[in-house]
């Protein structure tokens, strides 16, 4: 069972507000990921990190930014929220193992609604 947490679980906010979605994991995993998922649709990678001070943009363009100051923490920030940002945001982490392919463990997600 993976220990990865996201807060808040639900967020309703007005246009133009700055928001930060929190993601923490207690497994000591080096790699962490942010995905965006619309209801019933596929997951799109928006950011990932190989470790502390490492951040990379994913396959889906996003106006959000991330930081990785500590191994266990990978927050996502939107400087100015817009209705087009309304979606579910899923955080995941994984650990590299020799001779294997990493399994990603997901947090419960944050459902964001921008009015």
């Amino acid at each position, binding site marked *: 069972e993976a220990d990865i947490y996201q807060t808040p679980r639900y967020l309703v906010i007005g246009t133009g507000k700055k928001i930060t979605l929190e993601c923490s994991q207690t497994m000591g995993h080096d790699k962490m990921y942010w995905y965006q998922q619309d209801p019933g649709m596929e997951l799109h990678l928006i950011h990932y990190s190989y470790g502390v001070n490492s951040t990379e943009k994913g*396959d889906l363009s996003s106006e959000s930014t991330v930081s990785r100051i500590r191994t266990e923490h990978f927050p996502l920030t939107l400087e100015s929220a817009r209705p087009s940002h309304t979606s579910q945001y899923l955080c995941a982490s994984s650990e590299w193992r020799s001779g294997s392919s990493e*399994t990603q463990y*997901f947090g*419960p997600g944050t459902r964001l609604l921008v009015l």
Partner: protein
Amino acid sequence: QQPVQSPQAVILREGEDAVINCSSSKALYSVHWYRQKHGEAPVFLMILLKGGEQKGHEKISASFNEKKQQSSLYLTASQLSYSGTYFCGLRSYNTDKLIFGTGTRLQVFP
């Protein structure tokens, strides 16, 4: 390019079997299968590596055809708890990112 899953949706009676397919246009290193229930996070089911096959969960198994760049997930004697959306996540060579498929919605009725 995003992996394609088929079928898009499956409706089953309890105890029936189902097969979900996932295909890619790229050479694959590994295939990961996840199940996501409504309003919840995806849950890892199993992983298949190039040259191998691993069973990971309940009465669910999977195959990986490297030449065809395809994977299939087999659900036997389905249970109500199998309901959800199934995603394949594909990892190609020279990358450690997963690209997720379009999803297959499975509904099991009593």
